[in-house]
């Protein structure tokens, strides 16, 4: 049985399962469509949130990122989990108490303004579209790597699946599919991690294995530090040894935390549970299920880093392991020898390990293929430099030194010499991660347009049936747009996804927190704060990433502020502007104050039903 056969079996089975769930949980009303009828049990919602949250990037790229960054990779781990504490303590229970369907709903009603609602809708759309484009691309990448089908074909297949279950079942279909997707992706992530942990340290728990001695003696992390020092890489465990200084790690961590709490597709999940108690416990379950992957990823990262270097360094072509030969074909890792027939991986000029990306290596205006590069380099070695070309400086120039970081997760089942069906399971896991996140985001897009714009602003008199129809059509159209983004990826997408957090941190997070914890903050300061945060953050990102602006040091930091961390500054500015303007602006109306009181009361003092009755949108 080949890997390809098993991959077809697993992907086919998992897709059939998702479609079956979609058929069982199809819906007939907007409440079912947007908030799954508010009937999702806390633990199930936790799993769905976890699957929603963990994207193709978390599944495929995060362990690789940590593997190459060492300590500094921890900012992603802390940022993407620490945000849930903010969410659970500051936002989720109150937003659930408030009822309604979406984040712009809360902003629009709390600040009693359609302008505030529109600002929120635009931010939600912007954040979700950039994010979803990355997911669709992820679907295509998994298909092409494991099944050797065309990337675009893969994107189209992913689109069809999401189209069916999202339009049929809305949030209900999406939620229960995500529960299934969670199990697929977590199994696919844990099995290879446990296997390689046993192989290297004899410990079954990767988290223990990471802090244990290797079977061949010596602590794993000590050895990794020594290897890194020998090869000229910055230390694996020592903090602030590499390009990341303390100020930037701090800013990025905080921006990711606040951004996580402000992302609309995460917040909206807490509207689907029965009551406030369930919202609180479901936040716990969500982080619990997420932590299973996030606590394992750093272990996978270090194991794979050690194993990779150990099995490659100073080997000759005949001694190279099978996994290297398999992945060499994809260009994720390649060896360009200097002529001594011994592989050398290092941080210096003498490095011989590279990766290849189509379109990145351009000579005289012509994009070079992988085969061209390998052939010409081979010729260079064989002829002792008289013909062909030494490609190492070229690839180094193109920033392609070292293997592609995605190889860490993709190749780990082969490094651990697991059965072919486990490799296939990783493919299904990657797809589950990408599809679950994409569907959650598509629902946010659909609700922003169909609920916040159409039902609340354009045509408040629309009947239930009309609303549902608009909701379904918008989700259908968004799937197609997202798919097109995946097939023709705009160059900025991959970078912008990382910045979506900064934008969410600088816009939504302060507006929602102040909306709940202050009764005094009114419309004008909140809108100005959001606009300030958004403009400042996007200006800094655009100017420093595309405009070539030197990062600011503000006279406080040794290094300039990374554009990934600027969201923290934007958030602080938002708070300052909002709170600074508040004493000079009108107080919110008594009605709004009553609304805030209701949201703060313990549950049951006034039943949720009555809050929903008070909202005009739900009366229809």
């Amino acid at each position, binding site marked *: 049985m080949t890997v390809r056969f098993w991959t077809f079996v697993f992907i086919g089975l998992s897709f059939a399962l998702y479609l079956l769930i979609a058929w069982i949980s199809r819906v007939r009303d907007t409440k079912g469509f947007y908030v799954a009828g508010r009937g999702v049990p806390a633990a199930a919602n936790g799993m769905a949130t976890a699957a929603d949250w963990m994207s193709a990037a978390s599944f495929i790229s995060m362990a690789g990122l940590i593997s190459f960054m060492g300590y500094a990779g921890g900012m992603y781990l*802390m940022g993407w989990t620490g945000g849930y504490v903010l969410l659970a303590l500051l936002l989720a229970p109150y937003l659930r108490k408030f009822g309604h369907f979406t984040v712009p709903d809360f902003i629009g009603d709390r600040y009693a303004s359609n302008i505030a609602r529109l600002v929120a809708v635009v931010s939600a759309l912007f954040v979700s579209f950039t994010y979803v484009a990355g997911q669709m691309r992820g679907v295509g990448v998994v298909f092409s790597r494991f099944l050797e089908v065309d990337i675009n074909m893969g994107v189209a297949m992913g689109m069809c699946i999401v189209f069916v279950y999202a339009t049929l079942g809305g949030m209900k279909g999406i939620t229960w599919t995500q529960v299934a997707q969670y199990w697929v992706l977590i199994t696919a992530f844990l099995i290879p991690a446990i296997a390689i942990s046993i192989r290297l340290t004899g410990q079954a728990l990767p988290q223990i294995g990471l802090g244990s001695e290797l079977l061949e003696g010596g602590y794993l992390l000590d050895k990794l530090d020594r290897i890194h020092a020998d090869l000229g890489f910055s230390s694996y465990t*020592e903090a602030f040894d590499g390009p990341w200084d303390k100020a930037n790690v701090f800013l990025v961590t905080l921006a990711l935390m606040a951004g996580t709490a402000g992302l609309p597709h995460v917040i909206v999940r807490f509207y689907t549970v029965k009551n406030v108690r369930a919202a609180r416990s479901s936040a716990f379950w969500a982080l619990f299920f997420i932590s299973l992957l996030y606590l394992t990823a750093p272990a996978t990262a270090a194991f794979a880093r050690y194993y990779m270097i150990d099995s490659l360094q100073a080997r000759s072509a005949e001694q190279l392991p099978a996994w290297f030969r398999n992945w060499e074909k994809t260009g994720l890792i390649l060896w360009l020898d200097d002529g001594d027939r011994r592989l050398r991986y290092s941080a210096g000029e003498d490095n011989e390990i590279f990766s290849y990306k189509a379109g990145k290596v351009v000579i005289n205006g012509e994009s070079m293929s992988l085969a061209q590069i390998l052939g010409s380099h081979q010729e260079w070695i064989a002829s002792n430099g008289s013909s062909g070309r030494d490609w190492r400086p070229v690839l180094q120039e193109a920033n392609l030194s070292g293997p592609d970081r995605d190889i860490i997760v993709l190749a780990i089942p082969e490094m651990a010499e697991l059965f072919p069906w486990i490799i296939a399971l990783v493919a299904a896991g990657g797809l589950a991660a990408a599809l679950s996140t994409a569907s959650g985001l598509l629902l946010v897009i659909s609700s922003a347009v169909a609920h916040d714009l159409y039902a609340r602003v354009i045509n408040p008199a629309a009947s239930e049936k009309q609303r549902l129809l608009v909701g379904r059509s918008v989700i259908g159209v968004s799937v197609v747009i997202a798919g097109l983004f995946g097939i023709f990826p705009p160059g900025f997408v991959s970078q912008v996804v990382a910045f979506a957090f900064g934008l969410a941190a600088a816009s939504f997070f302060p507006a929602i927190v102040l909306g709940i914890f202050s009764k005094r903050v009114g419309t004008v300061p909140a809108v100005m704060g959001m606009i300030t945060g958004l403009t400042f953050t996007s200006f800094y990102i655009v100017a420093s990433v595309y405009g070539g602006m030197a990062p600011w040091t503000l006279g406080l930091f040794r290094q300039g502020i990374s554009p990934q961390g600027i969201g923290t500054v934007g958030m602080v500015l938002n708070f300052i502007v909002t709170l600074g303007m508040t004493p000079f602006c009108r107080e919110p109306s008594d009605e709004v104050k009553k609304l805030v009181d209701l949201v703060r009361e313990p549950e049951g003092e006034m*039943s949720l039903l009555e809050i929903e009755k008070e909202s005009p949108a739900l009366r229809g």
Partner: protein
Amino acid sequence: MSDEKFSEAEPGLSEPPYLISVIQNTLKDYWRSNVKIMMVLLGFWAIAGLGCGVIFVDALNVFSLGGYPLGFWFAQQGSIIVFVILILIYALLLNRLETKYHTKIKALRKSARKDKA
């Protein structure tokens, strides 16, 4: 965690004004306790994540936990474990607080009805 336990605690519409103001004060107490719990837990959140994981990480790395340098452990394992526990504690404490205040408000209503009779 059970649901709909408090459905009988619906407010009556014909409550006397003094009772409403007493209940409102009780609700304010509830909010204050909630904010207090929240602040303490957020303090731990900041210490574990931003403190041990970032600001004091180099100092903590002097110590070790098995094969882990302690600061590195906090950044890649410890902080996440603390976060999960914090959310659990918050959910449990708030459930208890809610129950406590429900009982209190119910008792207030009951004694008011007795006074009337």
